[in-house]
């Protein structure tokens, strides 16, 4: 326990030292809003579950709700490649800390991947306890269900992180992940199959062996003993699985695993051609800067993962919506599929392309300040690199749409590309500022992001609505005037305004970089505490 206490104490000191320097007020405000919303959801749950008249609704909806919570906790972090805080085993393995203690801390840290769900479950628990028509098993049920989720999350995360650390296997795992993500939605989209398939998972008469069904039964006071046994069995199974995965992670040597997958032979001519492409199109030093970015990003596991996810997940997640033929949602996706997927891809890529442009190549940041190249040119090089990869992403999305014979015409192409272009201009503007003001070292070799810096996450929470506001205006114009031309006119005005904003933001970012270069380099070279965030 001394060691667990020491680790948490060191992490507390780390946060204490780090946050006051990095705008704690801003983080607190946005964190307050985000968790305030979830607390609101928890209060709604509390009111619903404490109301005896709502029991019929609760009976129908609770298993599905608990399944959704499980998915939010386990699957969404893997899909977003952001798995919350985690022990920095690279540093802690050198010390005499028993594996069991490290595992216990890792289990507790999984709360960070699903703290919103904990809030909602607390609301459900209190509500159920206050409901005279429900038995008092909710505390036990949600307690065990949370424990199950925490434990299984360790195993899933460790397994995925190890698999994604291996070259070649990483690609295979990735595509299996995509298939896994696609399957439920494809099933949902196929009408006629939906009801029986869904019933197996979420409705009252589903298989009672699922952990969410067992937890639901316990809360509702149905089949108490078997439900408790089922839930405990799942938790025990999760414990065995996660301990096994965790011990494998402790013994895992990522350097050796990577080396096994690397070819000792020469590099393909086409990849070398790709790397040299910027130098053939642009003069040095810009050409050299962009070529370096190409080489660096393509070799970064984190970038490759996000790049692949950008278009594949976008396509897979939104595709089934197109096949839902009736209703406003289906029609919306049929009309705007390409636009939606392009914007989704941009958002997913933004982490590696916009928000922390210097975080990935932290070691190069110092060179940029020393090299006889203006910082404006350095940033322009980074922006052009991002633009290039974004274009590849969007072209790939478009190609897949064409191959799938999606209902696309010139107007839809123009709309999707114009919206993407305007979004990109504003993302570049905000990204350049944030890359300087909130520079933060990131390990490009980590496929999974363990968690975003609180302040960066908080800033994005505020920045996204602002960057998307011009697009919203354009769509409002189309709605108000009932004309596609109005959309394009407003988008054109947005683009002009965006370019002015971009220029101002770039100048401001460069000035800030020159002024705060020391702090920026220090921030980029800083490591973490015992818990990586």
């Amino acid at each position, binding site marked *: 326990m001394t060691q667990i206490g020491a680790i948490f104490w060191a992490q507390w000191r780390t946060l204490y030292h780090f946050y006051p320097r990095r705008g704690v007020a801003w983080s607190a405000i946005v964190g307050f809003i985000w968790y305030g919303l979830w607390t609101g959801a928890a209060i709604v749950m509390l009111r619903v579950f404490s109301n005896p008249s709502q029991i019929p609704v609760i009976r129908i909806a609770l298993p599905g709700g608990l399944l959704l919570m499980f998915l939010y906790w386990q699957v969404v972090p893997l899909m977003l490649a952001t798995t919350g805080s985690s022990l920095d085993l690279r540093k802690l393995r050198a*010390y*005499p800390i028993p594996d069991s203690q490290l595992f216990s801390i890792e289990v507790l840290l999984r709360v960070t991947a699903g703290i919103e769900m904990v809030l909602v479950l607390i609301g459900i628990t209190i509500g159920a306890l206050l409901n005279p028509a429900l038995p008092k098993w909710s505390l036990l049920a949600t307690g065990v269900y949370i424990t199950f989720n925490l434990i299984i999350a360790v195993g899933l995360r460790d397994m995925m992180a190890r698999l994604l650390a291996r070259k070649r296997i990483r690609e295979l795992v990735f595509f299996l992940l995509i298939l896994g993500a696609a399957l439920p939605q494809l099933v949902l989209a196929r009408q006629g199959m939906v009801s029986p398939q869904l019933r197996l998972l979420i409705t009252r008469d589903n298989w009672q062996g699922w952990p969410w069904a067992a937890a639901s039964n316990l809360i509702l006071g149905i089949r108490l003993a078997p439900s408790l046994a089922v839930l405990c069995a799942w938790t025990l199974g999760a414990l065995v699985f996660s301990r096994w995965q965790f011990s494998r992670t402790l013994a895992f040597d990522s350097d*050796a695993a990577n080396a096994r997958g690397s070819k000792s032979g020469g590099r393909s001519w086409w990849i070398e051609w790709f790397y040299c492409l910027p130098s053939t199109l642009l003069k040095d030093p810009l050409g050299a800067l962009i070529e370096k970015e190409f080489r660096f990003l393509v070799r970064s596991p984190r970038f490759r993962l996000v790049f692949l996810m950008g278009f594949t997940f976008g396509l897979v997640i939104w595709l089934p919506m197109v096949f839902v033929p009736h209703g406003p949602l289906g029609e919306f996706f049929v009309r705007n599929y390409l636009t939606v997927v392009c914007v989704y891809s941009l958002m997913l890529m933004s982490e590696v392309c916009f928000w922390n442009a210097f975080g990935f190549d932290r070691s190069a940041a110092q060179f940029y300040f020393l090299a006889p190249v203006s910082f404006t040119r350095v940033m322009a090089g980074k922006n052009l690199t991002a633009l290039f990869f974004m274009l590849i992403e969007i072209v790939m999305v478009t190609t897949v749409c064409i191959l799938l014979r999606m209902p696309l015409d010139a107007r839809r192409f123009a709309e999707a590309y114009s919206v993407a272009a305007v979004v990109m201009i504003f993302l570049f503007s905000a990204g350049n500022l944030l890359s300087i003001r909130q520079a933060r070292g990131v390990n490009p070799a980590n496929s999974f992001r363990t968690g975003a810096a609180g302040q960066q996450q908080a800033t994005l929470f505020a920045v996204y609505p602002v960057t998307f506001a011009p697009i919203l205006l354009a769509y409002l114009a189309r709605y108000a005037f009932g004309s596609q031309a109005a959309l394009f006119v407003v988008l054109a005005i947005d683009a002009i305004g965006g370019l002015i904003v971009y220029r101002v933001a770039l100048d401001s970012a460069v000035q800030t970089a020159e002024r705060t270069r020391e702090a920026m380099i220090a921030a980029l*070279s*800083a490591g973490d505490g015992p818990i990586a965030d």
Partner: protein
Amino acid sequence: MQGEAPAIEIRDLRKLYGDKAAVDGLTLTVPQGCFFGFLGPNGAGKTTTIKMLMGLAPPTSGSIQLLGLPMPERSLDIKQQIGLVPDESMLFDHLTGGEFIEFVGRIYGLDRAMARARADELLDLFELGSSPKKLIAEYSKGMRKRVAMAAALIHRPKLFLMDEPFEGVDAVGARLMKDILLDQVRHGATIFLTSHVLEVVERLCERVGIIHEGKLIAEGLMADMRGTAATLEDAFVRALGMEHAAETLDWL
């Protein structure tokens, strides 16, 4: 039994990265109470070896015994008796020097009050106490090495594993660290260090080993290793077979 065993006993140790052997059949014995210098050019396998000794990288094959205990089977017992000066990336940058030393002390099982008291004393000993609120991220390279060494001492280990402990340390700091290490050896501790600073190794170590391309090419007492060479540097270059004159480029 444990007291009589060598401090480090490595048998036929191999570490493969893909097809490449970073460490290739290393066999080495370091007796207890010895100040051992582990030398080699860049990429020779020094850091990989020390990582395997620290339990940070599993060997592909071979065996390691530290203080008479097998690694990794008894890794917890072994780690409890080891003081590490690892690669500086292993430090926690957002802690102050004092906090880091205290943290390490607590990880080694000292109670909080004792860990804090010893941390304060070590900070003063290593002349880091004048800026107690300074974060390790703000330390110079030499200060980082000093804080790492201070942390390695907090639980009075029997064996020190040190990766380039003098890298970036100024003359005064290096002198201080050398005195402390020699004192530890006098009190029976064993020190295994890698270093590029051959003058320091020559002055401190009684035994040295030279690793090249993963293989141990020479090992023995300092005097024997130096042989007829004027300095350890000459002997080192000769052992590596790199005595040819530096070539220059036409344009340079």
